[in-house]
């Protein structure tokens, strides 16, 4: 167990060498990977979303592919397609970029809804069906999608049902002054990526994911989780409550967080740590309260008793 913890800490440190001053976001990304979910990174252009993905992919040692979403991208460009081969007189399947372990989808909200939903379906089912044939995706399969805030022009905002498929949503934000200084004094981070060590690999990650699901959650923590969920369903601040999928995601993410903290049991603290990234993008304020998901999560944390 300690070796797992050390290894994961090393990995976090390795990533944080290049992603400066964002240790929480790095830990959440790792948490999301270990919980078997997919990650949505939402922020303004140029704050290091893509760099985070590249560094992350390098350090966790997964087979990496990147797709840049644009408005004219077609589902086949992501999933792959069959091409007629004149030599063999038969169709041959050319797998798309999705057939990889770590897929970076850049600017997911710039593609048309058709392409978006093709991707998101594959994410949920871990398989792709093309021309009637179902193909399994490699394991582990992890999608990190980046998106610009929806008020930017030329975007197709993801509908709530699609947002639900991302286990977490995080945003990076501007770096603090010290980190930015370090960054400016150092070289171009993209140049340094090749010097990074790959500390994990696909097989190791599958093992770790297995460990995470074995973490014990006692009734007292589960009740707290249920109180949180119930509150979102009853309180009039919320347009609608959290789904069952959301509560499962919350539990799984909290377990991964506990694992990263080196514990084999769950504390209410773990749930609180992952609540914002897991629930923030799934919650909407009721029509007469104009507040963001973040405020709603704060309300949840403040109002729901931890002990009851």
């Amino acid at each position: 167990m300690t070796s797992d913890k050390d290894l994961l800490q090393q990995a976090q440190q390795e990533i944080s060498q290049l992603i400066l001053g964002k240790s929480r976001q790095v830990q959440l990304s790792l948490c999301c990977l270990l919980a078997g979910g997919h990650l949505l990174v939402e922020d303004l252009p140029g704050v290091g979303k893509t760099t985070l993905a590249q560094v992350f992919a390098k350090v966790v040692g997964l087979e990496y592919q990147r797709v840049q979403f644009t408005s004219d991208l077609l589902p086949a460009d992501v999933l792959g397609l069959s091409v007629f081969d004149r030599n063999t007189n038969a169709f041959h399947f050319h797998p798309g970029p999705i057939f990889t372990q770590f897929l970076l989808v850049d600017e997911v909200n710039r593609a048309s809804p058709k392409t978006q939903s093709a991707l998101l379906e594959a994410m949920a089912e871990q398989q792709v069906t093309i021309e009637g044939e179902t193909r399994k995706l490699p394991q582990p399969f992890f999608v990190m999608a980046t998106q610009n805030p929806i008020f930017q022009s030329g975007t197709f905002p993801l509908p709530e049902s699609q947002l639900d498929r991302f286990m977490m949503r995080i945003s990076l934000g501007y770096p603090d002054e010290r980190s930015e200084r370090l960054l400016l004094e150092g070289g171009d981070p993209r140049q340094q990526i090749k010097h990074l060590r790959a500390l994990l690999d696909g097989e190791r990650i599958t093992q770790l994911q297995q460990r995470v699901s074995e973490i014990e959650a006692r009734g007292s923590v589960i009740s707290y989780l249920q109180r949180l969920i119930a509150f979102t369903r009853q309180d009039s601040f919320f347009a609608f409550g959290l789904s069952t999928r959301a509560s499962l995601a919350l539990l799984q993410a909290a377990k991964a967080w506990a694992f990263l903290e080196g514990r084999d049991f769950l504390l209410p603290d773990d749930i609180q740590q992952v609540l914002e990234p897991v629930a923030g993008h799934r919650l909407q304020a009721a029509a007469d309260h104009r507040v963001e998901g973040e405020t709603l999560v704060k309300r949840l944390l403040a109002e729901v008793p931890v002990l009851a």
Partner: protein
Amino acid sequence: MSAEHNEFSAEQYSRAGPWVLAAQLIVILPLYKVLPVWTILLWGSVAFWYWKVLRSAWVHPSALIKTALVLAGFSGIYFSYGRFLAIEPMVAVLVIALVLKLLELKHRRDYWLVLFLCYFCLGCGFLFEQGLLSLAVAIVQLLVLLAAQQRFYGGQLAPTASLKLAGLMLLQAVPLMLFLFVVFPRIGPLWTMPLPSQSARTGMSDNVEFGDISSLIASADLAFRVQFEGEPPAAEQRYWRGLVLENLQGRRWSRSDYKGLVALPESIKEGGSEPDLSYTITLESNFHEWLYSLTPSVLQDTDAHYAGAGQWLLRKPRNGRLQYQGQWFADVQIDAHKHELTRNLQLPDDINPRTRALAEQWRLQYSQPSERLAAALAYFRSGQFIYTLQPPRLGKDNVDEFLFETRQGFCEHFAGSLVFALRAAGVPARLVVGYQGGEMDAEQGYFRVYQSDAHAWAEVWLEGQGWLRVDPTATVSPDRIRLGAESVFGGVQGFLDAAPLSLRNFAWAAEIRAMADRINYAWARWVVNFDSDSQSAVLVKLLGKIDMQRLLIALLLFGGLPLLLLGIWATRFERGAQLPKLEQRYLACCQQLAKLSGIGRREGETPHQYLQRIQAQAPEWGVWFAEVTEVYVAARYRPGGDNNKALLQMKTLAKARRI
């Protein structure tokens, strides 16, 4: 009180707007039978205006418009009812006031006023309906009103949760309701109000023309229930006398205006002799002017008075359910005064010449009135008459046409024609209307008499025998009398037509119908008729006797004490009682720590977060509280944590710091 000084501003109240509208709608709708249609339309348009105001699209109407609306409302009520001083217009005025108040909802007191008026309107509904259904309606109304009221206290709950909470509040109020139901004084009416207009009445009327009763039979409504003490009389005896119609004007039979000589026969006056049968009748909720009874009966009701000819009238017409007891003297003769006999021989001139001729023939042929009566009945028996719900329409000489041409009629045709013919033959006769038969509820042992059991029969005066009941319908269609209207007309077009969905139309539903009726009967008997007499009886049973001292003690004991206990329980054990012991102890430590260090634990804080704050802000407690937290967390969250061991550790820790 100005709105600015309240912590809950008028603007926040306006968020309760949709609920205020819902509350209004749900109290006004069930009054639809009483209110003119335009009040609902008025509500709709005023509610629309209010909605626009809420959305800041429109402004509140000016004083001029409001005054105009009030005046229009009042004149509308006057034109709809023709008067103000009656229950219905009064309720309508209340409703109009409630509706128009929407246009000046600005301050918090306005919102409260509207809500309280809604409660008042809800109560008004019971002036018109007291059945079980109205109870169900009232419960739904209360739920909505309570949910609306919650909006005035912050309104954080979603609608379904709000309604659930309202249900809980209502349930909690049930003991208090029952208590008040039993002990609250039944004060007589403080003023009397003229009762509703003609339109509100259903059932038998006090005058009859051919075709009137057959239209009653389309109704599936219950008229009354009868409970006999002892063996119920046979179907042929169950003639429920209502009114005696002596006057025939044109084709219409009506009551005689003659008021003299209305004493009860000597032999059945009080204490005269033992009655053959006692019975209790419960009239369904309706407008009542007269009572139904077996002939001849004495009714035990202070409000009832004997009006001659076996009729019992109410001193003052009443609305609602009514219960009274009667004693039946089966063999007592009803005699007649000679003026009465003359009155019952009168016929309008120049109609029905053929009947008169036939009667004249009987008069010449037979010297005895009883023989003339036998001849008339023989005529009905042999004449191939048909008992039908849909008799052909008759012209001016209706009796002639019926007796000699169409020969199809309903009970009032037979009875009316017989009376006409007998009077023409010089035999005193009169028409009686009421109900006949009734359906037995085998389980409960009472009879149900429906509007479709409405009936008309004749009475004939014979020397030495007094007034005798003669029912020509029984001659033509004996099944109607022995088995009831349903046996003759069941399935025939016209029977229960006005109630196509009534369970009475379906044989298989008989059991369900009987069950529903039993519940209704119990409701009427135990709840609606719980008057000051029954109340005193209950109180005497409970307290021994009634005096101020005992009442006060009982009030304190049954009312005050439970409330006091509830209050103590609510404040002291509000949440603590439901928590496991370990949690209680940990929270006790937290509370004590908060007192000592001034740093309180927040609801949403985990043990570790609180510990961190304590360590940062009150380090002198840090070490000790870290131990407390570790013990708690280990027992509560670690796999296989031991509660009992932790409890002991916690106790020692608490003792160490004298907590």
